[in-house]
């Protein structure tokens, strides 16, 4: 089928998903992008956000905290260090992630503080987006 493509989501420990999809919305570091079959070859790093996968049987969302995505005309593979299906993400997990980002922000040296602040903001936005209340420590 020309309007479907292969989608792989792998974490270092296992393959989380491998299926045929229509489109994938990727939280790229320079902004969200949607990959559909026939997309120009692209490699992008990810920021914390929601990875939305539209397959034959509806849409699945994953929360990713970083990694990178490789897009080709025939498929998308996402290599994420941490990825969870959104419906499995609990308030406690978001709190942990935000707390961790907050800690990094505090500890970051002058050259890294901007990046850490951005990560923190992304984390908070991510929590809000999936309907949980990220609390700031």
């Amino acid at each position, binding site marked *: 089928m020309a309007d479907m493509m292969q989608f792989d989501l792998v974490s*270092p420990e296992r393959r989380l998903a491998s299926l045929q999809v229509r489109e994938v919305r990727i939280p790229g570091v320079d902004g969200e992008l949607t990959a559909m079959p026939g997309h*120009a070859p692209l490699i992008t790093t990810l920021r914390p956000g929601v990875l939305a996968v539209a397959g034959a049987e509806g849409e699945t969302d994953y929360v990713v905290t970083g990694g990178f995505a490789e897009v080709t005309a025939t498929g998308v593979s996402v290599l994420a260090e941490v990825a969870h299906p959104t419906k499995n993400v609990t308030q406690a997990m978001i709190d942990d992630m935000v707390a961790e980002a907050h800690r990094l922000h505090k500890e970051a040296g002058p050259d890294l503080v901007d990046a850490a602040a951005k990560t923190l903001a992304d984390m908070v936005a991510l929590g809000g987006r999936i309907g949980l209340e990220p609390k700031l420590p």
Partner: protein
Amino acid sequence: MPSLKDLKNRIASVKSTRKITKAMQMVSAAKLRRAQDAAEAARPYAERMNAVMSGLASGMAGAENAPRLLAGTGADKVHLLVVMTAERGLCGGFNSTIVRLARAKANELIAQGKTVKILTVGKKGREQLKRDFADKFVGHHDLSEVKKMGYDVAQRIAKDILTRFEAGEFDVATIFYNRFQSVISQIPTAKQVVPASFDDTAGASAQYDYEPSEEGILADLLPRGVATQVFTALLENGASEQGARMSAMDNATRNAGDMINKLTIQFNRSRQAAITKELIEIISGAEAL
């Protein structure tokens, strides 16, 4: 000549040893399956990561502003050897083969006038290297508390390596581990992780667009690459350890079986000898009357 009671005790003790080795073998077999599955599951990530990175790296090679993790520090003076072994013994030559390879490498580097630093992962390697290289140790990672080998462990080790690299503590880092070939064969392997080296440079860097930029992605990926390689090594090591233990325990079980047979024959012979002796005594006593 040991008495009948001694023989009986020895047979009983070897029998219980056999029970233990048999149990260890079966436990290892179960763990091996799990370790192999884990190694298998981690492969797609590592392969993809390696492919993308080697593509990027071949494009960046020789560039002036190449990241230090790729280009190195420009020097080749101080080598960090990361020796990964198990936390437990009783697994045949598993720990010794890694240590032997690491020791040979360390001696070779020292002979070339280079400085060697050693970071140990796992208790057994540290114990074996302590005699020769105790003054070279810079750190140790204890894995005895680790129930399940997860990516976070690899990240912790990689972070330690990278922090030392940032601090200028070494120029080249090599990890030592056993590559899992089969249950009876594990290959001690040395792999250079800093500066990054790639097996194949057949990457397809030209045909991709990069976001943000090639340099940005590479700078982001290289530290992850170190963690991924450490993780792969840990998993291979885990599978190798169980494989080595399984075959070592299989041998031990078989040896115990042979020993029991031998002792049983000896036991039966001396029991028969005692009976014969008693009979002769009775008969010759009766004849003398």
